[in-house]
């Protein structure tokens, strides 16, 4: 408490000195951005689009930042009037959801209020914002950063996590204390800056204090700590990175599987990456072992993306073609998984027989995730560790597999072509995203053509087809897009569930979309049907219900 007082006093003095002492001629800069999305819903019983009683949905965000020299301050005003369908319903009303003051010099920085941060890959700690998914677990508290010598970075912070929004920011009850250090060897030893060998090491400690408890049967630890070490090495064109996280026992309720209900097992995470890349060729391999790494600042049941302290990256490629991205996308399994991924990129040189006049790019990606090998021990009446497991020991039970190839080629000055093939194995019994609860085997092919008519006008055609005997069967997708640089675009697209066993559900999901862009201002609308699907950003997914209606959106920055 005493420390906090000293810091607050310091800040106060600083503001006075800063405002009086600095560059008086410059009044500072105000900048900001705004994003609004409005939807008008129509009922559509064929695609299961429900009509909410408020008919309209609206989400709005406006950030205002002020900067003067090394001082920054800002707020974000948020409105959910009413929250868009599919967005977390725990976001409602209108008010301020984020505010901060910060000051940063060459080697010291202070932030008070809300802030975002990440240690290493984020497995141990990541406070971040993914507005499209309704994720915002910013920390509300105080952060200090300090760089005592060149190459050494220290960070310490304490705060509460943003949980929901009800006419303003609502924090969770838990308190997070986090410390991170990172040493860049080459920057520390100035003379080694030109070395081909580069090394960075880092370490973190994060602890939470939480008294939320919905059970009278178990004694839950009120303080839970996690620690991690990480290493980045590079020699010439080869790089390696590794990270290890260990979390002490942290029991959570689990209504679906009693073997994971309030277990007192430690959590563990390992992330490895090895890569080689040069002009025209790259190969990259990643491996991940993750077990019992669910890590929230509360130990009661909350929404799946609420109050998460750590971020568990999925080792799969994030796809952008509609059918590949939204039907069977993968997110990390919270219980644990062993995952591997291999990428090979090759650019066939230009003016070669195979490469053509402009060269051809090929990208191969292969990813798998399996359930860890778990030996369940009958200790639920005593120690409740539930099972034993060992690092990188995986079972036969597959969670996900994805093999995909992309070939891109510029045919001539006007025509670009991209061909893609995807092969998925998706265990919906474990992943429970498609509500099919069995294995799904699917293949997708995509052809994407871009044709430049002249300097300002261009056309894009996209066709996709998916083949599967499971779930909702085959799908077809087509899109035509016309753009008039730099201001206009219009697109018409259709998805057709051609292979649904239920003939009534062989529905066309037609959509028309148009937009106007002027500098940093962008206005767009779309009208039509959207199928229920899974919307993912950065390996975190949210199920979006089917809808039919009109959507307006506007984004701008100033």
């Amino acid at each position: 408490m005493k420390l906090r007082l000293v810091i607050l006093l310091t800040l106060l003095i600083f503001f006075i000195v800063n405002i009086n002492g600095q560059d008086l001629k410059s009044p500072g800069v105000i900048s900001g951005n705004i994003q609004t999305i409005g939807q008008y819903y129509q009922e559509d019983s064929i695609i299961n689009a429900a009509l909410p009683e408020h008919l309209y949905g609206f989400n709005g965000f406006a950030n205002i930042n002020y900067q003067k020299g090394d001082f920054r301050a800002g707020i974000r005003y948020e409105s959910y009037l009413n929250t868009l369908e599919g967005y977390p319903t725990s976001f409602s009303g209108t008010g301020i959801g984020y505010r901060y003051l910060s000051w940063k010099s060459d080697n010291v920085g202070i932030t008070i209020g809300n802030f975002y941060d990440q240690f290493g890959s984020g497995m141990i700690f990541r406070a971040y914002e993914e507005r499209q998914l309704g994720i915002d677990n910013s920390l509300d508290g105080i952060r200090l950063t300090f760089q005592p010598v060149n190459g050494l970075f220290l960070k310490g912070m304490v705060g509460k996590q943003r949980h929901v929004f009800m006419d303003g920011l609502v924090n969770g009850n838990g308190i997070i204390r986090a410390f991170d250090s990172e040493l860049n060897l080459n920057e520390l030893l100035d003379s080694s800056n030109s070395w081909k060998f580069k090394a960075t090491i880092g370490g973190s400690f994060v602890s939470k204090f939480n008294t939320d408890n919905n059970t009278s049967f178990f004694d839950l630890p009120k303080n839970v700590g996690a620690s991690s070490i990480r290493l980045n090495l590079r020699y010439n064109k080869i790089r390696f990175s590794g990270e290890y996280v260990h979390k002490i026992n942290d029991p959570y309720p689990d209504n679906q599987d009693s073997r994971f209900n309030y277990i007192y097992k430690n959590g563990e995470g390992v992330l490895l990456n090895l890569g080689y890349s040069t002009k025209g060729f790259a190969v990259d391999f990643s491996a991940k072992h993750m077990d019992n790494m669910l890590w929230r600042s509360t130990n009661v049941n909350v929404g799946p993306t609420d109050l998460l302290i750590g971020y568990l990256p999925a080792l799969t490629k994030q796809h952008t073609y509609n059918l590949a991205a939204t039907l069977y996308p993968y997110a990390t399994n919270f219980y644990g998984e062993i995952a591997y991924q291999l990428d090979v990129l090759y650019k066939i040189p230009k003016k070669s027989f195979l490469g053509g006049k402009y060269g051809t790019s090929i990208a191969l990606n292969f990813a798998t995730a399996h359930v860890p090998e778990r030996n369940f021990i009958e200790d639920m009446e005593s120690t409740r560790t539930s099972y034993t497991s060992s690092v990188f020991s995986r079972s036969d039970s597959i969670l996900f597999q994805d093999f995909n190839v992309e070939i891109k080629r510029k045919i001539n000055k006007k025509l670009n072509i991209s061909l893609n093939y995807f092969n998925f194995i998706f265990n919906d019994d474990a992943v429970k995203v498609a509500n099919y609860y069995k294995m799904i085997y699917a293949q997708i092919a995509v052809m994407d053509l871009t044709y430049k008519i002249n300097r300002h006008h261009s056309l894009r055609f996209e066709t996709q087809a998916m083949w599967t005997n499971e779930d909702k069967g085959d799908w077809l997708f087509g899109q035509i897009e016309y753009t008039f640089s730099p201001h206009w675009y219009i697109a018409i697209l259709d998805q057709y569930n051609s292979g649904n066993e239920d003939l009534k559900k062989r529905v066309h999901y037609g959509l028309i979309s148009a937009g106007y862009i002027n500098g940093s201002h962008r206005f767009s609308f779309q009208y039509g049907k959207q199928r229920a699907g899974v919307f993912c950003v950065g390996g975190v997914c949210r199920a979006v219900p089917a809808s039919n209606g009109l959507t307006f959106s506007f984004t701008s920055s100033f």
Partner: protein
Amino acid sequence: MKKLLFLFYFSLFNFVIYSQLPNINLKDVNGNNKNLSKLSNNGNPIIISFWATWCKPCKAELNTIAEEYDDWVDETGVKLIAISIDDARSSSRVEPYINVQGWDYMVLLDPNGDCKRAMNVNNVPHTFLINGSGKIVWDHNNYSIGDEDELYEELVKISK
């Protein structure tokens, strides 16, 4: 702690260079730390383009500019900084991609969106043109074929 406070008081009196670029440390793909507000191009213009490995229009924009980049540099002295907003899931894809494509840009990583937030970027691609004194003179949020011509015209205007 005392030392820290001392340093803090001391640094209050440091001189501040005015720039519209935020005082944020970002890593390049080699792991070197770069402070955005301290990057200069000897009074020549800078283009900052926010992109991601999963963003098709972003890659189209930067690949298109890459074909003409040498000419742009010769004519205007411009330097392009491509800031990737890929997070921990995909940030390991950045280096292989840029090496295979052979981009000559400075590529920085913004895995938790700090720089994106500070520069008021809502979505990618978002491209800024910054003049020799660090002021943002033009920006564009989107990419469609032909937009690179508008950027080039603006670039030529400020480098005269």
